[in-house]
C-alpha cells in the first residue's frame, strides 16, 4: 500500500469495525505494530499492556469516551507524554478545542483521508527522541 516502511507501536481504538480493521491494515502495511480495541475499557488496558508510541482513537466509544481516556492518560506519569491522535466524526469547534485542552496532539475528522493520516502518524512518531 505504501512505499516506505516505518516503525513503532500504535494502539487504535474505535467502536466502528470497518475503521478499526482498515486502520489496522493500513498501519501494519506501513510498517507499524498495531493493537486494536473496540471500546474505551479495552483501549485503556491495551495501552497499559502494549506501552505504545502512539494512540489513535475515536471520541465516542462504549464504557469510556475519548475525552475520559485522554484525561486519564495525561494524568498518569507513565503516559503523560504519549502522543494521542483523535479520529472523530464530531466536528463541533468546542469538541475539537476540548480535545486539545485535555492534551490530544492532533485531531482528524471522519471521513478521513488515509494518506493524510499516515503522514500525520509519521510526523508525530518521527518527533520521538532517538532510541525511544
Amino acid at each position: 500500500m505504501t512505499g516506505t516502511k516505518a516503525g513503532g507501536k500504535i494502539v487504535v481504538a474505535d467502536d466502528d469495525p470497518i475503521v478499526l480493521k482498515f486502520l489496522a491494515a493500513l498501519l501494519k502495511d506501513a510498517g507499524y505494530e498495531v493493537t486494536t480495541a473496540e471500546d474505551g475499557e479495552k483501549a485503556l488496558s491495551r495501552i497499559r499492556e502494549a506501552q505504545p508510541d502512539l494512540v489513535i482513537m475515536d471520541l465516542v466509544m462504549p464504557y469510556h469516551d475519548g475525552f475520559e481516556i485522554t484525561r486519564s492518560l495525561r494524568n498518569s506519569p507513565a503516559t503523560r507524554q504519549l502522543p494521542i491522535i483523535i479520529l472523530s466524526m464530531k466536528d463541533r469547534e468546542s469538541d475539537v478545542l476540548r480535545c486539545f485542552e485535555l492534551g490530544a496532539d492532533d485531531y482528524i475528522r471522519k471521513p478521513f483521508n488515509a494518506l493524510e493520516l499516515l503522514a500525520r502518524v509519521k510526523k508525530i512518531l518521527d518527533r520521538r527522541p532517538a532510541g525511544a
Partner: protein
Amino acid sequence: MTQPFVLSTAGVYDLVVNVLWTVSTVFLFLLVVIIVNKAWRESREGFAERRRAEMEPALFRYVMGTEPVEKFIPSGVSRRDWLVLEKVFFDLLRVARGNVNTRAREAFESLGMVDHYAGQLDSRRWWLRAEAAEKLGLMASERPTRRLIEAMTDPIPEVRIRAAQALGGIGTPEALRPLVGALRDAGRWSAIRVGGMLIAAGDDAVDVLLEEFRNLPDAARISAIDIFGRIKSLRACRLLLDLLKDPAPDLRARAAYALGMIGDPTNAGALAGCLGDPEWSVRAMAAKALGRLRETESVPALSAALSDPQWWVRANAAEALRGKGGAGQDALLHVLDSDDPYAAQQSVQMLQESGVLDTFVGMLVSTAAGEQTRALGVMAKLVKLRRIDLLTEVARDHPDRMVRQRLAALLGLPAPVA
C-alpha cells in the same frame, strides 16, 4: 318432517380432536418454516461474514494501491460475493475520503455494478428502482447521469427523491441542472429538500445556479439566493449586489440576508445603502446582514437605523451595533442622548445585554481618573430615560457593597444593609 340434527357425545369428542389436530399441525408447520428460515438467514449471514473476512484485506490493499480491482479478486466475483464487496466499499466510503473513495468508485464501475444498478432503474418494482437510485448516489459515477435524470420523473416520490439525491452526489453541471430545474416545480418538489441537495453539492452547484438564475421564476430565485448564502459563495456576490436594486422587495431582502451569510466585509457599503430602502423588510435584513460583517464602516448608518419607524429594523440595527466592538458600543452610548425614545430604549437594551452597563456600574467606585464621572454620566442618562427599574435591581443585587451604596444614593433609595 325432517329430523333435528343431534350430535352425540362421541361426535363432539371427534370434532374437538380433529380441530386440535388441525390447529397443532398448522402451528407445527409454521414453526418448521420459521426455524428453516432463521437457519437459512443465519447461514447466509455467516457465509457473508466469512467471505468478508477473507476478502477485506485484499480490498484494503486495492483501495490504497494503484492496480485494477480484478487483480485483487483473482477468482472473480459471484453474486453473493458481489453483495459482500459492495458492503465493504460502501462502509469505506462512509469513513474515508480522498484516494480511498476514488478507488472504490473505480471498482464499482469496472466490476459492472454501476451498469447493473442503472439497469435496475427500469425495474417494475418501485423499491428496486429506489434501491438502485440510492446505490448509484453512493457510487457517484457520472455514467448513469442520464438514467437518473429520467428517474426524476418516476411516478413514485421515493424513487424521484433518491434519484435527485444521487444527482446531487454526482455533482457535475449536467447532473445538477435538473435539480436547479426542480426548484421551479414547487408543486412536485420541496424547495427545502432540493435546496439541501444543492447546498451539499457546494461550489459546483453555484456555477449552475448562476448560469440558470435569470431563467428562474421569482420563487425559485429566492431559493437560489438562500442557497448562495448557505454555501457562503463569494462568486455569487456580484449577482447578489445587483439584486439589492431589483424591483422585487423579496429578492432585495433575501439578497441582503445572503450577503450577510457570506460575510465579505467589502459589501458593507452596499448593505448600509439598503438601510434607506423604502421597504422595511429590506432595511431589517440589511441591518441583520451588517451585524454579521466584521467591519465598522457601517456604524453611522446603523446608528441612524436605530430611529427607523419599524421595530424590527431598530432591533436588528441595535443587535448589529452590539457586535461592532468599541465603535458600536460608543454609537449605542451616543444614542442614549437621542430625542428618539425608541432608539434610546433599544440602545439601553443592547448595552444591558452585552454587559456594557454592568461595566459602567462597576466604574461607579473606580479610582481611575475620569471613570467615575463617565459612569455617573451614563447612570444619569438611564434615570432620564426612566430606566430606574433597571438601576434599582442592580442597586439591590450587585455583589460589591460600595457599588450598591453608590447606586442607592444616586437613586435616593434607603442605604442597603451590609
